[in-house]
Each structure stands twice: as C-alpha cells, then as structure tokens.
C-alpha cells in the first residue's frame, strides 16, 4: 500500500515537472518575442532620431540645421 502511494507520488511529480518544462518553453518563446519587440522598436526609434531623418522631416516646416553653434551665456557672480 505504501509503495503504491509512493508510486502515485512519483507519477504525479514527474507529470508536474513535465508541466514546468512546457511552461518554461512557453516563457522562452515569450522572451524571444519580447526581445524581438524591443530590438525592433528600438531600431525604429534610432532611425527616427538620426539627424538625417529629422533634417528631412523638419524641411516641411522650413526648418534647417543651424550653421553656427549655440551661444551659452554663463553669468559668473563676483562677490
């Protein structure tokens, strides 16, 4: 009788471990998909933020890159 219980336990545990494996496979697939989404989205954003892309986009607004650098005025207080 005891042995039967043990066997049942063993079967149950082996099934539950199988289930875990399926779960892991599912999660792995999800990781892959999320990673793909991340990289793909990031690559789209990176292309968008490239200066050459922005330059063409703002051309419609008749904006173009400045030919002189920004001037920073730094006020130093002399005490």
């Amino acid at each position: 009788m005891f042995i039967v219980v043990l066997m049942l336990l063993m079967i149950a545990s082996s099934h539950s471990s199988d289930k875990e494996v399926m779960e892991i496979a599912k999660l792995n697939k999800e990781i892959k998909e999320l990673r793909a989404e991340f990289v793909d989205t990031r690559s789209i954003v990176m292309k968008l933020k490239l200066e050459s892309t922005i330059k063409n986009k703002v051309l419609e607004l008749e904006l173009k890159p400045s030919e002189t650098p920004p001037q920073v005025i730094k006020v130093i207080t002399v005490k």
Partner: protein
Amino acid sequence: MPVTKKNILNKLYIVFVFIALFFIAIIFKMVDIQVAHGDKYRSLSEQLTLRNDTILANKGSVFSADGSLLATSMSQYEIRMDAYTVNSEVFEKNIQSLADSLSKMLGNTPNHWEQKIRKARTHKNRYLFIARRLGYNDYMKIKHFPIFNLGMYKGGFIAEQSTVRVHPLGKVAERTIGYDDYRGAPGIEGAYRKYLRGEHGLRKKQKIAKGQWKPISDNNEKEPIDGKDIVTTIDVNIQDIAHHSLLRQLEYYNADHGCVVVMETKTGEIKAISNLGRTSKGTYYEKRNYAIYETQEPGSAFKLMSLVAALEAKVIDTGTIVDTGEGRYKMHNRFIHDSKRGGYGKISAARALEVSSNIGFARLIDENFGKNPDAFISLLKKMHLHQKLGLPIKGEGTPTIPAPGDKKWSKNALPSIAYGYNLELTPLQTLTFYNAIANDGEMVKPKFVKEIRSWNNQVETFGKTVIDPQICSKSTIKKVREILKNVVVRGTGKKLYSKNFSMAGKTGTARTEYWMKDWETNRRYVSSFTGYFPTENPKYSCIVVISKPKVQKGYYGADVSGPVFKDIAQKIYTSSHIINKINGIEPNFESVKTNFERYYSIINKGVKAIPNVKGMAGMDAISLLENLGLKVIFQGNGKVIEQSIPEGQKIVKGTAIKLKLA
C-alpha cells in the same frame, strides 16, 4: 456421442498445442531480445528518448560609443499562408480587405495580392509565400490582418520564427561592423568573434509529450556562456552625417566608390567610417571596406609626407624657392605637369604645398635627394609609412614604398614619390599620418573598439596604442600645420574656407588606372581630402576619398571630397557650445525689487481667494493668476489698473479674469 466428444477433445489438444507453441515462441523471443540483443535495443531506446541538448549561448551585441545598438541577434519572421484551409464564406468576404492591407504594407497592388492568393487557393497551395525577414512589429501587424487574425487553422496564417543578426541602423557602417557567418568574418564582428560568440552549453534531456524535452538532472553537463558585448568607438551622429554626406557626393558625381573616416586626434578612436560602392543599378551600399583594404597611390595627399621628410633632413626650409616654370617640366626624359595652365613660376616650398605643385615637389625632392634616394626613403620608413597598422579587422592592405634596387625603382621613382605616385597606401594609413601631425607628432593607432562588456561589467578595455611618440620634430610640425591651414585659406582648398570655423588639410587629385590604354579618352581620378579641425588644438582628423567621379562634373579633391569633410567639420562645430562668460551684472533697481517682494509675499502666504493685483506689474499679475487656475485676458501694457473680479472672492478654476494694464 462419445465419438464426437473425443473429436472435440482432440481438436482442443491441437489448439492447446498451438497456443502453447505460440507462447513458447513469444517467451523465447522475449528472452532473445532481452539477453542477446538487449544492449542494442536499450541504446536505441535511449537514442530516441534521450538526447544531449545544446543550450545555445546568446550572441553578444555590438554597440556604438553612446550605447546605440549597431548589431544584435533578433527574431525575424517569415510569413506564409495556407490558402486552402480558409472557409470559403470567410474567404470571399475578407479577401479584398486582406489584399488591401498586404499591399499597403508590402507594396504591389491589392489586385496583385488578391490574384496571387486566389490562384494559390485553386491550386490548393497550403504554403504560399507572403513575406520574409519581417521584424516583430510588422509581424504583429500582419498577424492582425483580416483572415490572418483567425489563426493558423482557420485563417491559414503560418509564421516561421528564426534568429538572425540584424543591424538596427540599416546600411550605416555595415561593412565595418561586419558579420560572422557562412559568408566569412569581416569587420568588428569577425575580429571579435571569440568574444561575441560565447560557448554553447550541454544538457541531457528526455523526450516527453507534445514534442518537448525534459532535462533529466538539475545540473547542466556544461553551462552555456553567453557572448560578450562589444562597445565600439563609433559615434552615431557623426557616422550619420558622414554616411549621408558621402552618399550625396557619390550620387552627384556618379563615382565608383568612396570612403570617409573620422578619427579622434588624441586617442585614435574611429568616430565614423563609411564605405560606399556603386551597384550595377547605380545605387550605393556598403560594398567593401575601402578605407581599410584599398591600397592606392595617394597622389597629392602624400606631398605632406615628402615635405615633412625634407624638413626633417634639413635640406630645405618652408621658404626655399623652387622654380615651377610654366606648368610643364622635363625631368629624366619625362614631363611633369601642374594643374594650373601657365604654371606658378617661382614659389616657396610652403606655397608649393598650398597650390599642390607637382613640379615643385618633384624638383625639391629630386634635387636634394637625387644622389642619395635611400636617405629619403628611410625617412619615410622612419615615419612608419611602410608598415601595416595591425588592425584587428582583417583585410588591411599592405603599403608599398619602393626603394633603390626594387623592381619598381627607376630614375623617375623618386620625383614620383615626392608627389604621391609610385607608392601605395590605404586611406586609413594616410589618415593615421595626418592625425599624427594634428596630434603634435604622436602617432596613435586607429581604434575601433572601446571595451568589451558582459551585462554591466567591463571585461576588457582597450586604451590607446601609440605607434610612435614623436614621428618628427615639433618645429617641423608647427611649420607644416601652418601650411595646411593656408591650403584652406588660400590654396587648393580655398572653396571650403569658412569664416565661422577653422579646418586644415590637403586636397588630392590622383590619376588612377593611367597605365590603361583608354585613359586619355576616359580619364579616371581619385579625389581626396585629408585633414583635421579645428586648426588650433585639433579634435578630429578626417579623410575622404572618392574614386572615379564623373570627370565632366568635376574631379578635383576640393570639389568632390572636400564638401564631405566640410559637412562633418561644420556639424561638429555647430554641435559644440560656445560659452561666453559674463561677470556678474545683477540688475538692482528699486522698483523691480519692490514688485518682486510683493509678488513673493503673496505667493508665500498661500492664496485662498482672489488677491489684489492692482498696481502690480502685468507679468507678475498674469503668472500669479494663471497659477491659481484662472484664465487671464488682458489689455494694454505695464501695471495693472483694473481687475474684473474684486479682491477676496472665491477662486473658481477656469473662470476668466480681465485685467487692464497701463
């Protein structure tokens, strides 16, 4: 009756014997299988249900200096369609909108897609190709198209995932980043493959239901080691400018190929490298790493090296006068020409570099080193011009500088070398020399990779490698830097001069393939511009080489390659701030002070009802009231003389208050 009974019994015995024989046979076979062939079958069963599974190591990524991804491994999808499985009612209802969606996303007309899918349906095609190499976002989009959104069995949507290496920035610097697969291993990916790849792990697994495999033990036989990440020195912004500027010039001049490299003067870090070659259709792409592999005659760019060598030998000075005559000079039975008709006459050595006079340099070098060419060649070699840089990226071209006694050597070899022919260098080698001049004589090795990381830990960092701490004397450097500055101010690079920012460099217009018979009818040149900016305390050096521009449109270094150089210099100049320091001028007017104090006291008290703003400066009153959630409508300019809601009333957010200013 007994007779029949016995008959039955006899039959029964026969059956019994048969069954007994049958069982004996089975038992015999069982024993046979277990004992005689047991090992064979046991191992067979193990093979079928057990396997040594490799756990794939994740490949590392390649980053730019600022952390943008340049190359990484990612899932991509190939989409196919089972055109036959779809229910005909659903199919007829949605086919048009599916075709519409597909044409919007993948091009071609809706009609084309409809025809294609219908045809596949009649042919019972269960594996119709739709698109390949789709990124995740496109995959999600296409998955939600009509019909496809019904899934695999009802909608016939088939997606096959695969892991591929992608360059998120597209074509930019593709060749230098490189790849590592069946095609070979060029670029950074190839050079650092042992870091990127990692090591696959091993694990024993047992087959279970649904085609899955279950690990047998907790421990892996061998743990996988993920690949490391490579952080390059490439600056995405400079790279972007360089790439597009080069592309524009190549397209305009319809040139065969070109390259541009930007290098940080002090450290030798390569900030941008772009190599574009023309396809048969006339478009350009990163074909080969010209900057690294292509050895060619540098032409006028080499005059700098000649001048430095001559100055070092102290045989001439920048003021030494040379007679370049009328632009045509016969030396050792061969004519040398200058690009200006009529010639430059008598000019100084410095001016000869500014205007890039071939005759000037041929004479200066030939007359001073003609009797002892070895001295000149050994000076060049002392400056490491005959050595490879020893880059980790494979395929670097070997420079050649002939010496007396070589096959290539002749009486004309020395004067030719003086103005950049009869020897070969790669663009990067030329740039390394110019960078040394910009860096006060310290020659640093070009560097592509900053560090190797594993997650957030540095694994290995690469410092700067000095090839030679001082390639020539400081006084020589000072002299040639002054001349290089003047090349842009008043020499061959005059067109590039800008009063806003400074740059220095040398143009180059070298003939190429002039040994071919058709050269006179189809002239081919290599236009280049090599230099650094700004002229004082240079931060970056840069080389632009464009091969075989269409001669009708122009071929001079300053016209073809110079603009790319200028674009980059200008970009870097405009993105650095100019800081003006002003010594503390704090405004100190009584009225301003009282106004501010009144405003400040009201705010500090915490306002619960409409305050009295009469007499307050308009800008203070408006900001005060708007911060309370009121809408301010005002008239006039100056101080408040009237407010439409009197003091002390409850504040109702969003109500309008009218102010009169005077």
